[in-house]
């Protein structure tokens, strides 16, 4: 006899907010207005710059030429098109360093989001689904962590375990789980009461299968939106930590390090603080605009949550 009943473990979840992401995406982007299109272009540019840095950068970002130190951008007197955005205090090309700096920001943004998103989503799923003591403990830890300024937490931990790209990414990723955890938990609380979850359970699906196959796709929309916003905030926090000398080591060209160098040359070389900061601000702006739009496009109700 042909097996035409619904197989227990393949019961299709009824609501799948996540699928909206694919459907009509192109049309929605075109309708979204110039801000969003510009943001997408800018972020694409950043990704291209990060990947193609060795090809795009006109100079070695770490090699200085002391005979050409503190040169202004090309349109000013004393500037040279060979160094379009000027040079820094040891004659390194600001333009090349800005290009290479995108690698660090992109790495930190993406990696820290993956860590905090995975950790927070997992804890939120468990917390919301299991309830009881597990939920109470996880949520109290979240409360305590929220009762402490994020940047101060990051500074204290990095101060002790030491700076460096890996440490910063791990600290940001681990410390950032709270917002994911809380949002996912809230969604799980309502989704777990739906019939399809009950159906899956009745058909004999285990807890892990219910959580990851049936519930997770239905709570994933806010995670995507949150990921966008937190990527922006992690990039800023990394740059701030690096600026304070507690992040990426000075030998690596990053926007935060460029701003650290620029601190002592604000008076003499305005291009040193302006360009890396503007690159960071534009990246954050584009990411935030994209997040705003994703939120409104995927689920307008999320406006209340974030």
């Amino acid at each position, binding site marked *: 006899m042909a097996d035409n009943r619904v197989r227990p473990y393949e019961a299709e979840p009824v609501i799948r907010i996540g699928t909206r992401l694919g459907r009509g995406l192109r049309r929605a982007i075109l309708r979204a207005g110039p801000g969003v299109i510009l943001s997408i272009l800018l972020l694409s540019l950043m990704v291209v710059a990060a990947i193609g840095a060795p090809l795009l950068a006109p100079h070695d970002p770490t090699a200085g030429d002391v005979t050409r130190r503190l040169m202004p951008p090309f349109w000013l007197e004393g500037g040279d098109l060979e160094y379009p955005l000027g040079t820094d205090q040891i004659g390194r090309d600001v333009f090349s360093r800005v290009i290479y700096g995108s690698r660090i920001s992109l790495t930190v943004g993406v990696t820290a989001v993956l860590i905090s998103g995975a950790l927070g989503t997992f804890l939120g799923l468990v917390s919301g689904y299991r309830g009881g003591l597990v939920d109470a403990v996880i949520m109290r830890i979240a409360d*305590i962590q929220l009762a402490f300024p994020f940047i*101060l937490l990051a500074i204290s931990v990095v*101060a002790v375990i030491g700076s460096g790209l890996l440490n910063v990414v791990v600290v940001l990723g681990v410390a950032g789980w709270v917002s994911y955890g809380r949002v996912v938990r809230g969604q799980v609380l309502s989704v777990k009461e739906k019939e399809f979850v009950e159906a899956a359970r009745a058909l004999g699906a285990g807890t892990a299968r219910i959580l990851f196959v049936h519930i997770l796709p239905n709570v994933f929309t806010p995670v995507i939106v949150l990921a966008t916003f937190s990527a922006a905030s992690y990039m800023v926090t990394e*740059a701030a930590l690096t600026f304070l000398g507690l992040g990426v080591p000075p030998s690596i060209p990053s926007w935060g390090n460029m*701003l650290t160098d620029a601190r002592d040359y*604000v008076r003499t070389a*305005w291009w040193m*603080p302006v360009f890396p*900061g503007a690159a960071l601000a534009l990246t954050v702006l584009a990411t935030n605009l994209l997040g705003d739009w994703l939120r409104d496009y995927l689920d307008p109700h999320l406006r209340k949550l974030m």
Partner: protein
Amino acid sequence: MAAFLVRRLLQSVLVVLGVLVLVFTLMQLTGDPATLMLPDNASAQDVEFMRRKLGTDKPLHLQFIRFLFGDRVLGEKVEERVVEHQFMSSVVAGRIREHRGVIMGDFGDSVRFIDQPALPIVLERFPLTPYLMAVAFAYSAGLSLVLGIASAVYRNSLLDQVLRALAILGQSIPNFWLGLMLILIFAVWLGLLPAMGSGSIEHVILPAVTLGSAPLGRNVRLIRSCMLDVLGADYIRTARAKGLSELAVVVSHALKNAAIPVVTIWGLDIGLFFGGAVITESIFGWPGMGSLIIQSVYKRDFPVVQAAVFFIGLAFMLVNLMVDLLYAWLDPRVRLAH
């Protein structure tokens, strides 16, 4: 209200405990603080003594109890003694004394300011931080209120559109970069304000604007949308119909009812300012607690870092508590909802 109060206070106690655990754990992450603080050629006796001074010769749970309540609780008597410390690249003589516990305000002795207890160093720097925060708050709250209301009252006008664009832009500008740009514009190019230090009224302006601008964009957007919700209500139409001036309608009828979410977000901002102050103070050389933390981190002066971090955690908790109580008092639904 009483039940809400008790629950909320218990939560605060939990938070303070959590902060204490965090501050204690920070020190554990260093590995062995004793060898970190002693010179390389320290005798085994000195290492042992330093471990006793820091309490790291005991099991973890006893260390935590000692950290909280001092040596005496563990029934130990510590005689005073002078031991050579490693401080940066030089060796200095340091005193070893009994630890009286965080509960007595003893976070141990500073490494950088040799033998001075950590807490008074923190307390000395403390007042400048709330001062900076207060000015930042006045600027931030005042400006966001004016701009938010203007944006709502003249909605969809050119002014509104410009303000909304500026608000989104402002939300994306990294705070510390804004600080550098303000120094560049107002101290270097225009020469109007001092870039560094403290002492006069002028000194506080740039740091306060830097700190206060962080939540400005978001608050303008929030106040705008709260005001728009309220301005569409029936009682506003009534107020207009009975002939009140537009100013009276906006200020005494609309603003009052839009206040609750705004007050909440302002409370959260004060919390944010504690974190922001760490960076802002460092940029402007503002001698408050934030720059003390950063300097102490550079010098690996962990007792001072611990004391300052705990102090900020405590202040942060108190502000959150007050905001929640204020919120519950303003809006009865909050205390009934739980």
